């Protein structure tokens, strides 16, 4: 009887997760704990980094079987629906359908649109140019990734990290490089959180003290009619030009129109809060679960992280340099620092501009001026994503 007991316990232990851990899984658990520490203690983009890190922990526990990459990434290049019919699919496989089918990022964009005020951009439309200039980072990282030997589609997905826009990065990576989705999402959100550390040295290096001290004229008030017309015009123009991002841009502008029209306050509040929060949880956990040890622990992930940093730095540099050009053209009316806000990362990049500007001149308030290029960057990165999708997809 005792022998049977020992055999049963031994069998249970050998079948348990403890006996099936690999070194890679242990390392991934350690990485997920570090990310959770950054999210909880340092509050680095906690809303997404925490569920991503938790998903990463969940997927790397042995024999849990909640995520099966082969259902989505296989030779047929199609979702293996039979796994869902047979009950083989785990919980996260069901969640992941929202990414694979391109549902979550547009839903997030509805909420982002409802929370975005395009007023500063409408008041100073020249900011569009700064938002465009900062997209150079995407293409620089794309070339860099090609140099490291990545396939063109994967290089495009890596490049979009430079757009500093999480949902766009996830949308593009799920279409062009599903194998690298976890690494790309982690890189995008980590660097967005690190904007206050990455940007200021570049901004200070490329500008003089005099340029940083420039006080800009107060923005004109924007009428409600302009704010209502804006999302409709942007949607028509961008979608006609780059139809591949119709879902993203359409949802962004739908959310904004809900907010600006003022007639659907209930819907606007729902997409800003409940919908956004629910989708954030599902998106974060699903993205985290794609980071399995076997595909995350590779040299490729390190290159992705490195190229992401390069993309952010180049985007910031081009934004500031274009700001300097506009400063010269307008005879000193534009503070070049606001160009750095052209990397989307809303509103973090604009806050960094405000802070760096105030270090030189405490009475200088650049926040609203920087919000213009900041939201222009969101539109710019969506357009860039559309181009990459149509050329490399």
């Amino acid at each position, binding site marked *: 009887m005792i022998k049977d007991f020992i055999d049963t316990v031994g069998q249970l232990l050998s079948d348990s997760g403890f006996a099936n851990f690999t070194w890679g899984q242990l390392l991934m658990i350690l990485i997920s704990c570090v990310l959770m520490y950054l999210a909880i203690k340092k509050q680095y983009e906690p809303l997404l980094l925490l569920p991503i890190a938790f998903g990463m922990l969940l997927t790397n526990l042995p024999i849990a079987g909640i995520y099966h990459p082969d259902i989505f990434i296989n030779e047929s290049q199609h979702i293996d629906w039979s796994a869902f019919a047979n009950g083989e699919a785990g919980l996260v496989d069901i969640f992941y359908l929202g990414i694979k089918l391109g549902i979550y990022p547009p839903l997030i964009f509805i909420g982002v649109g409802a929370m975005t005020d395009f007023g500063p951009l409408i008041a100073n439309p020249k900011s569009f140019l700064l938002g*465009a200039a900062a997209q150079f980072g995407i293409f620089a990282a794309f070339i860099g990734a090609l140099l490291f030997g990545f396939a063109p589609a994967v290089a495009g997905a890596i490049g979009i990290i430079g757009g500093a826009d999480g949902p766009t990065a996830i949308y593009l990576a799920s279409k062009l490089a599903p194998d690298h989705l976890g690494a790309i999402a982690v890189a995008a959100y980590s660097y967005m959180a690190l904007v206050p550390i990455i940007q200021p040295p570049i901004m200070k290096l490329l500008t003089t003290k005099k340029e940083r001290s420039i006080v800009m004229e107060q923005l004109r008030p924007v009428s409600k009619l302009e704010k209502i017309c804006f999302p409709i015009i942007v949607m028509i123009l961008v979608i006609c030009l*780059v139809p591949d991002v119709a879902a993203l841009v359409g949802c962004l502008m739908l959310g904004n129109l809900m907010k600006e029209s003022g007639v659907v306050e209930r819907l606007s509040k729902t997409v800003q809060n409940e919908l956004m929060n629910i989708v954030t949880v599902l998106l974060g956990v699903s993205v985290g679960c794609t980071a399995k040890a076997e595909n995350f622990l590779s040299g490729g992930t390190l290159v992705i992280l490195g190229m992401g940093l390069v993309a952010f730095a180049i985007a910031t540099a081009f934004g500031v340099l274009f700001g300097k050009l506009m400063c010269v053209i307008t005879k000193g009316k534009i503070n070049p620092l606001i160009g750095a806000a052209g990397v989307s990362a809303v509103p973090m990049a604009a806050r960094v501009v405000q802070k760096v500007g105030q270090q030189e001149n405490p009475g200088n308030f650049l926040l609203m001026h920087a919000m213009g290029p900041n939201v222009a960057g969101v*539109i710019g990165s969506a357009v860039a994503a559309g181009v990459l999708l149509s050329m490399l997809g």
Partner: protein
Amino acid sequence: MDWKLALSVTLVGISIVFLALVCLWLIVQGIGAFMSRSKKDGGEKSLAVKPEIREETAAEEVIFDAGNNFEEELVAVITAAIAQYESGEFRIKSIVRKRSKRVEKKRSAWALEGMRSGIENRFRV
């Protein structure tokens, strides 16, 4: 590495991004100019009725001051708080109240509100 592909994607990508955003810039600029012009025209047309509106505004301002005399102070405190939040090096050394208005202390908020609505009703046509 396929340099031809890299350069074509980069050139096409940057060109389309700039094209889209320059078009948006011009459209938004045009709409803004049109709106401000029509606003100006509207303003000139409504000059005839302006004196009447002014009277009403002045009366409303008096009422507003009586009920919310602390508003300026509140604005100053909020502005200082934002400045402090945005810049680590900014310090508030002192707050000087340059203008003060006496309000009868015995009057409660309810009484002020009643007075305000009473005056407001008298000015209503």
